[in-house]
């Protein structure tokens, strides 16, 4: 149980994204003018982009990952795959089929050392949706079924990673039980990892990433304790990489962020020699 299995085309990993599309996601994210659904759509688009970026080699996008996307709450009491082709697809399929491309700018340092803005095309796969109630339990049940099927064919692969992006207000029961069942599922390399990206409308609360103690959670958001409690403890194999990256984590840190991105967690997956980030802007 070491989380050291090589992630390769022979031995791909599995990411399942669960996106809360319930009505409450139309509320503004605390301290911002953006809705939680906009933030959720952006988070999932950015994370798929980042995964594709990591899988991009000179010869194209290598299928180091299989991807599944579950939306819950767009239709009342319903959790369903957001991908048309299949429940789970190799990542190169997503690279080949964004919904649309949008122009974005990023700051880069030019050869003379000046910071300049340059335009690039950012792919969008998912648009914001905020519609009905929050069947999070159903979404976890669907994820569990997918993990069961996938793990049967990938017994020695890196354990599946489930990323739940939500404001936490489940309307179909307590998700803790099914979440814990998922966290007990495993491949020969370790237990399934459950990451939670908590989007809260609470104003004035500081963004929080990878807390080790629930005492630091914002007390005024009643779902923070629950989502923290159903987030995996970061595996030891993440910690040495995290230390090289100067991330503030320890052996009790959990894969939970409050109004912050999960991007740093992707950095901790070992899929080859890393280039120094100071050169990657």
């Amino acid at each position, binding site marked *: 149980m070491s989380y050291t299995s*090589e992630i*390769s*085309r*022979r*031995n791909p990993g599995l990411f399942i994204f669960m996106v809360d599309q319930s009505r409450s996601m139309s509320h503004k994210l605390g301290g911002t003018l953006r809705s939680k659904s906009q933030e959720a759509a952006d988070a999932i688009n950015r994370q798929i982009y980042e995964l*594709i*970026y*990591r899988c*991009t*080699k*000179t*010869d*194209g*996008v290598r299928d180091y990952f299989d991807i599944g996307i579950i939306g819950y709450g767009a239709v009342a009491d319903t959790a369903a795959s957001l991908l048309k082709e299949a429940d789970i697809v190799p990542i190169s399929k997503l*690279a080949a089929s*964004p919904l649309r*491309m949008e122009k974005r700018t990023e700051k*880069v340092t*030019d*050869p*003379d*050392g000046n910071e300049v803005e*340059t335009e*690039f*095309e950012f*792919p969008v796969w998912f648009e914001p949706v905020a519609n009905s109630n929050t069947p999070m339990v159903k979404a976890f049940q669907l994820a569990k079924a997918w993990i069961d099927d996938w793990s049967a064919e990938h017994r020695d692969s890196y354990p599946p990673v489930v990323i739940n992006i939500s404001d936490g207000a489940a309307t179909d029961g307590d998700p803790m039980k099914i979440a814990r069942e998922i966290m007990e599922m495993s491949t020969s390399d370790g237990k399934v990892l459950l990451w939670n990206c908590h989007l809260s409308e609470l104003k004035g609360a500081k963004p929080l990433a990878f807390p080790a103690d629930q005492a630091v959670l914002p007390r005024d958001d009643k779902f923070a304790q629950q989502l923290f409690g159903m987030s995996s403890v970061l595996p030891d194999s993440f910690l*040495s*990489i995290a230390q*090289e990256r100067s991330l503030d984590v320890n052996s009790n840190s959990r894969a939970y962020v409050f109004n912050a991105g999960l991007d740093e967690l992707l950095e901790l997956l*070992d*899929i*080859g*020699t*890393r*280039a*120094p980030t100071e*050169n*990657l*802007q």
Partner: protein
Amino acid sequence: MSGIQVLGFRMSKLGNRSTDCEDFYSWDLARMKFAMADGASSSIFSDIWARSLTQAAMDENLSLDDSPDSLLSSVMKAARKNWYGGIQWAGLPWFLRNKSVSGSHSTLLLMQAWPLASSYRYSAVAVGDTCMFILKGNQIEDSFPLKQYSDFGNTPSLVWSGKGSPISATVRMSLPKYSTASGTIAPGSTVILATDAISKWIMEHGKPQEILEVMGNDHAMKGFISREINSKRMRNDDTAIIVIRIM
């Protein structure tokens, strides 16, 4: 002294095509100059960059007796030109175009030897974790730049190509962190240059003779490295090795 014998071998990580290997080497026997580079798998076009670095280092006007700053600048400048010209920038799909802006990365190890009356002197420059070993018999007398297997980390120092298109077609690169070494090599010694997977294996297991015994037989080498990887004694990675026997 009656000269040197050189053998080289490179191999893709298991599961990849043989053409996917991003580790490269070059040597110039007349000038006893050797170069090895390990293209970083996290950036794209690293194979072109690693190959360009090793080829640029073979320029007959460049010597390891030059200052390391000057040597590395010259190698990087020539390699950058080769790298940039070797990529078809137009028409790249979005994922290659976006990633190409970040440029490519590679380790680099350069070594040159010169004959003395009864031995050789050598100089070496290293960026990253591609290592050089000097063996007397089967014993490792010295290694450079890393000394023990625990020195291998996840973020080795790397040579950067500079920005890719469309940010920059011009050269403006800062020198990476590097280490230097020099000394003498006695007749009867063996020098090994190897990228990180083999170097770490040599340091961890301390039996370089096992690899030397199959060097020169590519089929046997592939079998040996595959077995070590499958038994998890060696990391599954691209590999490159040069063995220089000093007669």
